[in-house]
Every structure is written in structure tokens, then in C-alpha cells.
């Protein structure tokens, strides 16, 4: 369970948002909306623990995420608006390295089949810098299919994806929520999800 209480964010001398409150139990989905510069990315980075909150608390399973340290990261997957891919490595190498770093060993065949499912078959031996923006985004999202984490934090992941890829991500999210996962997604798209708990947070208000 993810609990956010009275969270505020100040960057430089600008206040982005204050008094953000929400509670996400297993199987719930939170869509974060707001105009550009309203602090969507900052909110997601706060939830990941990349930023330290200046006000308020973020608790995971009842404990403050700052005190959980690395234990928190075993249950967290984050895909940022920068894809987090090495340009020199192929999608297969990228996927194997990122899952290896989070403790899941992935063989060459497993990586190939996962990338095939996300629509990159035939492209998985090219260095990532030769791929299109959408293909790179797909490679970054393939990471979600290898992990067993319960909290997904996705930042603007649907940009530069075509409609079939958006459908694929939707089904991926649906499956994750059905398994009892939690997803926090910053996006302007209304996703067609049948989650048992669908919340929206608008940072503009």
C-alpha cells in the first residue's frame, strides 16, 4: 500500500504543488495529470525516492520510504521520460543488463522472446541509437515484463508510441493491476482500464 500525506514540492524558489494526499491499495491505478511544468515528474521522482520530500510523507506498507532504503527498490519499477537505455547496446543487451541489475537473470532467448512480444523482433540486434523513438520506448517498457515488482511508476511513457503499442501497454497495466499491483502513471491519455480502483490527480488545481 502506498500512502502519500500532505506532500509538497518546492523546486528552487517555486512551489510546484502542496497538500497532495492519496492512498493506493493493491490493484489501484492513479493517473497524474496537469499542464506542463505543474510538477508531474517531480511527484513521480518523489514517489521513487529520487527526490527527498520537503513537506509531507510517503509511506510504503506503512514505513517511510526514506527509511526503507534499498528494500523499497525491490518492489519498485520506474520508467522515466528519458528511457534509461544505453545507446551503444542492443535492446537485448539493454534488457539483460537492466534486469540483471535488479536481480533477475535473463537468458538471451528469454530476452529475445520478451522483445518479440513487445514488437521488436528483427530489431533486437541493432544498437539502440539506430532505433526510432517509439522502438526505444518499447525497449524501455520491456523491462516491466521481466520484473516482479508491485509498484510501477511510469512517466509520460505513452508519448511517441503508436496505437498498437498503447494497446499493448494498456493490457500490460491491466494484467499488473489484476495481479494486485499498483501503478502511478503520468499521462494525458485516458487509458481504457478496468481497474477496481481508478483515481485521478490533477496537479493544476
Amino acid at each position: 500500500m502506498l500512502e502519500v500525506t500532505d506532500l509538497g514540492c518546492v523546486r528552487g524558489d517555486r512551489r510546484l504543488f502542496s497538500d497532495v494526499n492519496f492512498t493506493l491499495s493493491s490493484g489501484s491505478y492513479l493517473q497524474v495529470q496537469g499542464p506542463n511544468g505543474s510538477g508531474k515528474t517531480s511527484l513521480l521522482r518523489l514517489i521513487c525516492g529520487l527526490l527527498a520530500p520537503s513537506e509531507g510523507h510517503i509511506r510504503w506498507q506503512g514505513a517511510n520510504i526514506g527509511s526503507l532504503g534499498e528494500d523499497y527498490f525491490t518492489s519498485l519499477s520506474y520508467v522515466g521520460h528519458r528511457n534509461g537505455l544505453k545507446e551503444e547496446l542492443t535492446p537485448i543487451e539493454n534488457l539483460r543488463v537492466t534486469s540483471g541489475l535488479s536481480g533477475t537473470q535473463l537468458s538471451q532467448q528469454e530476452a529475445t522472446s520478451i522483445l518479440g512480444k513487445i514488437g521488436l523482433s528483427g530489431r533486437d540486434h541493432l544498437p539502440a541509437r539506430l532505433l526510432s523513438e517509439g522502438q526505444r520506448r518499447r525497449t524501455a517498457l520491456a523491462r516491466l515484463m521481466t520484473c516482479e515488482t508491485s509498484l510501477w511508476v511510469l512517466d509520460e511513457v505513452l508519448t511517441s508510441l503508436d496505437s498498437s503499442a498503447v494497446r499493448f501497454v494498456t493490457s500490460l497495466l491491466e494484467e499488473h493491476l489484476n495481479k494486485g499491483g499498483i501503478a502511478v502513471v503520468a499521462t494525458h491519455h485516458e487509458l481504457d482500464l478496468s481497474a477496481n480502483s481508478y483515481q485521478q490527480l490533477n496537479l493544476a488545481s
Partner: protein
Amino acid sequence: MFRWVVVRDLTLAWKGRVDVLSTLFFFLIVVSLFPLGIGPETHLLRLIAPGVVWVAALLASMLSLGRLFANDYQDGTLEQLLLTPQPLYLVVLGKVMALWLVSGVPLALLSPVLGIQFGLPRNALFVLVVSLLLGTPVLALIGSIGAALTLGLRGGGLLVSILVLPLYIPVLIFGAGAVDASIMDSGVQGSLSLLGALLMLSLVFAPWATAAALRISLE
């Protein structure tokens, strides 16, 4: 997981081997300029050899620091590394170890060839290699603090040298001191032991400081 950090950085170093080789060539050329500039005065060359090789090693390892975090910072993989379920201390240690394997080790192994240019006796060549093998990991460890602190700053490269070079001085003194002592045929153990002590000290504290600096730089 620690293994994956090392494997990842070694693979990336292999794919970008031009960068790695150019640092090595820099080291070779800087050291080779001195015999050419000073002329064939064996006695003088032998006297300055330890200092010259060690100063060049210092500069070369500083040049390689740019590769340590800057690329990962730009493409967002550093964020991912911070979010892996293992202590950041180990991530940093893995990255520094990979950097040392591709910059420090080849530099140390090349140094006897350079020592011959300066007319160093055989036992001094051996001490040179040992001192560099002990000293270059310290340089990489201390340098990683500077690289993490200046991450994302404009003109970070110059700032790193101002921050880090003063901290390299003890390594320079004991490293060059050990080679000097072996030329003079006095005991080298003292200097080498101190280099080893510096290595232990920086293994314990530097990755921890670098991890803290990385968290600040990524906020």
C-alpha cells in the same frame, strides 16, 4: 548484481574503446615527451622518471573520470542504477572497478616500456608497476567523488581537476617515492605499505562519499 554493474561498464568500455585507448595514448605521449625534450642525459632522466610517470598517470586517470558518470547521467541510466535493489555503495564500487580495469591496469602494465626510455634499472621497473597497481585504484576512487559532485555542471571537467588533483598529492608522493627509493636502493616497503593503506582507506570511504554526492546531484 554487483557483477552486472562491472559487466555492463566493461561492455560499454569495449564498445567505446576509442575513448579508452585515447587516454592510454595520452599517458604514453606525455611521458615520452620528456626524454625528447630533455635530451639523452641518462642520469637526469633517471632522477625525474618516477615523478614524470606518476604525474602523467595522475593526469590520465583524471581524464578518464569524465566517462564514469556523465554518460549515464545524460541518458537516464544513472537514475535506474540508483533505483536498483542493492546498496549504492556497491554500484559505485562496481563502476569504479570497471573504470580501473580499463584505465589503471593497462596504464600500469605499459609503464615498464616507458621506464626503459628513462633508463630505469630492472628492480625500479618492477616497483613502478607495483606502485601504479596500488595507486591507480586510489586515484579512481578519489576521482569518483569529484566526478559525482560535478555531475551536470557546466565546465565540470575543469572543476573536477581543481577538486581532485590536490587530493591526489599523497598518492603521488608515496607512489613516486617508492620508485625513487628503489633507484637509490633504499627500502621501498614503507612507501608501498602507505599506498596500500591509502587504498584500504579509500575503498571504505570513497564509494560512500560518491554515493552521497550522486544522490545530491540527481535531486
